[in-house]
């Protein structure tokens, strides 16, 4: 089945076509959801919620744009909405100025695997994690992030810098080893 026929059938709520679409995009989208959450279960919850939205709002998709980008956007908004709704995340959305260490300059590029990098992102406090995902990976500017999260541009900018600094620190081989050994213990 080519993509065009899948899309046409999805519009008609054809379950088989929906499944094909899901199978095509689910692994990448789960990676996105995983970056925003703290557990795989939560990431799968977001993915489920996101795909339900995708299929129920499929008529809103304009073929002029990329389908993956459209689904991606839905997943990001669903993930943020999920964080807002769940107390265990909401309580960690701390945007105060003193939660992380001071800004440091990057010292080098790590040879860590993608999965390891993403694990590091997920180790950040939820607020920093969200901002870093939006600014560092999704590419939103701080004005947009301030609107999404209801914080000031300045806060977004400084939180991003601190999150980035912390990640750099963790990426550093010795820090990373310490972290790994702590985990193993």
């Amino acid at each position, binding site marked *: 089945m080519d993509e065009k026929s899948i899309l046409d059938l999805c519009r008609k709520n054809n379950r088989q076509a929906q499944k094909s679409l899901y199978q095509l995009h689910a692994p990448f989208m789960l990676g996105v959801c995983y970056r925003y959450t703290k557990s795989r279960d939560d990431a799968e919850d977001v993915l489920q919620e996101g795909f339900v939205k995708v299929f129920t709002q499929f008529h809103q998709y304009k073929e002029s744009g990329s389908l993956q980008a459209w689904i991606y956007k839905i997943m990001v908004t669903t993930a943020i909405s999920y964080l807002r709704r769940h107390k265990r995340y909401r309580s960690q959305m701390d945007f105060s100025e003193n939660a992380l260490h001071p800004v440091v300059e990057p010292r080098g*590029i790590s040879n860590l695997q993608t*999965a390891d990098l993403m694990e590091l992102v997920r180790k950040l406090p939820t607020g920093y994690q969200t901002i870093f995902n939006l600014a560092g990976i999704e590419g939103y500017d701080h004005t947009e992030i301030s609107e999404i*999260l209801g914080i000031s541009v300045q806060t977004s900018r400084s939180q991003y810098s601190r999150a980035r600094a912390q990640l750099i620190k963790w990426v550093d081989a010795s820090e990373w080893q310490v972290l790994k050994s702590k985990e193993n213990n």
Partner: protein
Amino acid sequence: MDGFDENMKKGGTQFEMEPSPELWSHIEKQLDENKDKRRAIWLWWLLPFLMVASGVYWYTNQNKDITTLEDELITVVSPDQENPKKKDGIINAQKTEEGNQLSGNQSPITESLKQQVRPLQSISKDQITPDIIPAEAKTMQVNATATVSIVRKEAYERLLKKLPQIEFSKSSLTIIDGGKQLKQLPALVDSEVSKAIQPISIKVKTEEADSLNSVLVSAAVAGREKTDSTKKSLNKNKANGGFRIIIGTGFHNLGGKGLGLNPLLDGINNSTVFNSPGNPGSSAVLQPTRARLGFMVGAEKTIKIKGSNRIEWVIGSQYQYQRIEAFTGNRSDSSLPFISNRRGSSGETSMAPYYYNVGNNQSHIGHQHRLSIHTGLQLTLDKAKHWSWQNRIYGGIIISSDYLQPQTIIPGWVPSANLIRKSHAGLETGIQYTYGRWGTGVFAQQNVTASSNFRNLPKQYWRGLELRFFYNIPSSVKK
């Protein structure tokens, strides 16, 4: 962009994970459930209209009944042939449907008058001409009626003492003036009754309030409104004070001399106004009046009490047709620690307090249970035939349960396609106790919440319609 940023971005956009094999079946199940719910949504849409229609129907029929009653009260009395006590033909009571329904709570005078009652011949207004006076009549009485507002029972009792001819009936005053003219009395309580009626005989039949039966059907529409989350960051989305203007229509039927209902604005919680059934908004005042359909406009200001998430002070006023209210009070809207079932096949549950945290975000779905405690002071100016006022201190507890169903919004309801759009239709039922009175209500809502998407200004809009049906249980009538 340095290597770190590039690496991170690249890593983030390439990262993939294989979902659990059973996840698709969860999605499929949820899609099937949504399909069923979408069908049910039409019923949610229908419900408010049905409620309005039934209200209008009832209101229309109420008026019909009143008209009939007034026609019946125009009577011609022929000379009394059967009762030797009534040789002069002065009849002080009527045999009407209302008369047959007199309550057992009658005075001795009333009882003696009732003994003199005999069937009367009823004619229409048009037939009242000198020609119809029977030749043998010594006196002819034409009775006209006027509806009066008697606010307190004491007023009736005072009248009873002054006018031995008076008999209580259902909020009607009958003036007998010898057939020469029909006379309408002004508001009975405020006028000097003895002067007004001296030249004529007066008969007032008032039925004691049947009970505190009352029904309120009302609708309110709130216009575009910024909500809390436009001002608050994510971790501060507590209930906050705010300002709300509501314009709407209301329908009241007030059963007998019993109960009025204060419509929507009294004690509405800024953050839960469209989520609460029969909530602080339904309070009772004593007043005798007919069903009324009116337009309602008002405003309220809620002030958050520092250090508290849920306690607010409310100040407001409103005008409804011939009715002005000012109110103030304290409100505490707290949730019960019941489990709130959240939609989704993950089987996740969350505690009801979530409800508050979402506040105006309206992102709650599923069942929830709430407990509200409210106290307040209310001053009402009410005009049935004349202006009267009641003040009232009220307090109550409301326990409610509701179910809200998220919906897809009709395109065009929100100003921008880029806005995240949420809509809920809901049905809530609750039970309310205010001093001496129990009530229960059904509440339907249809609202739209729109919040900003990534590339828009951080505005939120609210548009909504709510309909409220409230019934006071006649369990503690004090006559």
